[in-house]
C-alpha cells in the first residue's frame, strides 16, 4: 500500500519547524516516528498535502531530571523510555508502560510526543500520564505554554494543541515515594492496542487511603481521570467491600465505546476488574 503523495519538508531546527507549521497550518501534518501516522496514510484513512518531518530535530531527544521533574523530549523513542535507567529508578510505571507498547520495532521508531499528540483513545501512555499528572510543552512562533495532560485529549485523534503549535516536551513530576503506581491493559490480540487500559496511583496511610488517582483509556473517546471514584475513596479505610462497592460506578453515566472489539458492558467489566486488581496489588494485600 502506498500513501497518497505529498510535499515533504524536513526542518533541521525547532524554529524552522514552527515557521513551516504556522505557514501551512491544517494543510500540513507533523511526522515524528510515523508509527501511527504512516499506517493511517497507507490505508488512506488520512491524506495531507504537506508532511513536516521533524525527525531531524535532535534538540527534542533527551531524558533529564530537572526541578523535581523528569523531562522527556518529544522525539524520544518508546524504547528509550523503556530502557532509561533514570526513568526506571524514578518512575518505574512509565518504563513498564513504554515496554507494553506494540512491539520492539514499533518502539524503536515511535515517539512519546507523537503518541500523545496523536491522541488515540486506546494508546498506552495517556492513562499513565493522567495519574502521574504530567504536562506537555507546546511551542509556537508566539512562544510556549504548558498544557496539563488532563486538558490535552479532546476526542479521538484530537488534542487541544493549536494548529500552529508543536508538542516539544513531556514533563512528569517525580512522584512522592509513598505513592505506588500500577498499569494494566487488555490488548486486542491482533492490533496490540488496548481494548481497555487502566492506571492507578495509591498512597496509603496505614489502612486509610491518603491519596488516590485512577485513569482509564479505551473506554470513551478520550482517556479520563475518574475523579468521582477517587473522591469516594479518599480518607476511607480500604477494604474488599469498599473496593467492590466503588468499582460498581466505573463507566456509569459515560458514553462507553461499543465496537467490534468489545461492547460497552464488556469494557466496563474489564475496567472494573483492572481497577480492583490494581487497588489490591498497590495496597499490598
Amino acid at each position, binding site marked *: 500500500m502506498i500513501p497518497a503523495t505529498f510535499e515533504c519538508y524536513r526542518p533541521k531546527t525547532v524554529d524552522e519547524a514552527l515557521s513551516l507549521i504556522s505557514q501551512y497550518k491544517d494543510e500540513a501534518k507533523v511526522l515524528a516516528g*510515523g508509527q501511527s501516522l*504512516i499506517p493511517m496514510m497507507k490505508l488512506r484513512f488520512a491524506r495531507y498535502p504537506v508532511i513536516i518531518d521533524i525527525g531531524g530535530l535532535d534538540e527534542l531527544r533527551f531524558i533529564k531530571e530537572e526541578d523535581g521533574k523528569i523531562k522527556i523530549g518529544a522525539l524520544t523513542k518508546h524504547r528509550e523510555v523503556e530502557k532509561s535507567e533514570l526513568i526506571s529508578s524514578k518512575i518505574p510505571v512509565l518504563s513498564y508502560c513504554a515496554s507494553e507498547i506494540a*512491539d*520492539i*520495532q514499533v518502539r524503536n521508531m515511535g515517539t512519546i510526543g507523537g503518541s500523545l499528540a496523536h491522541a488515540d483513545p486506546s494508546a498506552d501512555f495517556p492513562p499513565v500520564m493522567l495519574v502521574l499528572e504530567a504536562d506537555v510543552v507546546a511551542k509556537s512562533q508566539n512562544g510556549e505554554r504548558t498544557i496539563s495532560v488532563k486538558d490535552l485529549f479532546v476526542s479521538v485523534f484530537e488534542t487541544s494543541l493549536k494548529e500552529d503549535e508543536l508538542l516539544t516536551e513531556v514533563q512528569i513530576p517525580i512522584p512522592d515515594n509513598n505513592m505506588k503506581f500500577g498499569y494494566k491493559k487488555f490488548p486486542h490480540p491482533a492490533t496490540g492496542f488496548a481494548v481497555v487500559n487502566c492506571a492507578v496511583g495509591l498512597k496509603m496511610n496505614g489502612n486509610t487511603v491518603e491519596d488516590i488517582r485512577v485513569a482509564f483509556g479505551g473506554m470513551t473517546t478520550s482517556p479520563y481521570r475518574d475523579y468521582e471514584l477517587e473522591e469516594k475513596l479518599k480518607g476511607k479505610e480500604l477494604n474488599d467491600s469498599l473496593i467492590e462497592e466503588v468499582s460498581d460506578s466505573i463507566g456509569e453515566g459515560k458514553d462507553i465505546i461499543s465496537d467490534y472489539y468489545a461492547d460497552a458492558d464488556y469494557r466496563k467489566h474489564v475496567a472494573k476488574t483492572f481497577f480492583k486488581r490494581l487497588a489490591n496489588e498497590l495496597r499490598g494485600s
Partner: protein
Amino acid sequence: MEISLTVNGEKHTVDVPPNTLLVYLLREVLNLTGTHIGCDTSSCGACTVIMNGKAVKSCTVFAFQADGAEIITVEGLAKNGELHPVQEGFMEKHGLQCGFCTPGMLVLAYELVNTEEDLSEEKLRKALKGNLCRCTGYQKIVEAIQYAKEKV
C-alpha cells in the same frame, strides 16, 4: 527527493518520491528482495530491517526517514561467505518451515543477540511479539535465537 543511505555497507544516493516506503526502496530500487512484505500494515514483521542499529518495520518507515542512515537487511548478515550466528542458529535448530517470516525473524534476532542480555524463553516470546510465523514455529525460533546468543 534525493536521499543517501548506506545499505549493507554500500552507499547509495537515490531520487525517490516522498511517499516511497523504505521497503519499496530496498526491494524495487535497490533490488534487495530478501526483505519481505507480508501484512503491509506493521503487524507481521516480515519487512524488519536494522536502521542505525535498531530493528524497524520498513513498510512503516518512509524512505526519507532513512536519509543518512545505516541499514542492514537480511542480505547483509553473512560476511565473506560466513553465516552470522543467527543464521546458523536458524539452520541448526530448524527455525523455519515455509521461510516467509525468516528474513524479519533473523534481522530482529540480530538486534536481540547484540543488545539484550537476558534471552530467556519468556523474554524472547515477548520480544517476538512483532514477528508473526504463520507456520507457528515459534518454539524452534526461540531455540535458534538462544543458540545464536551463545555464539555471539
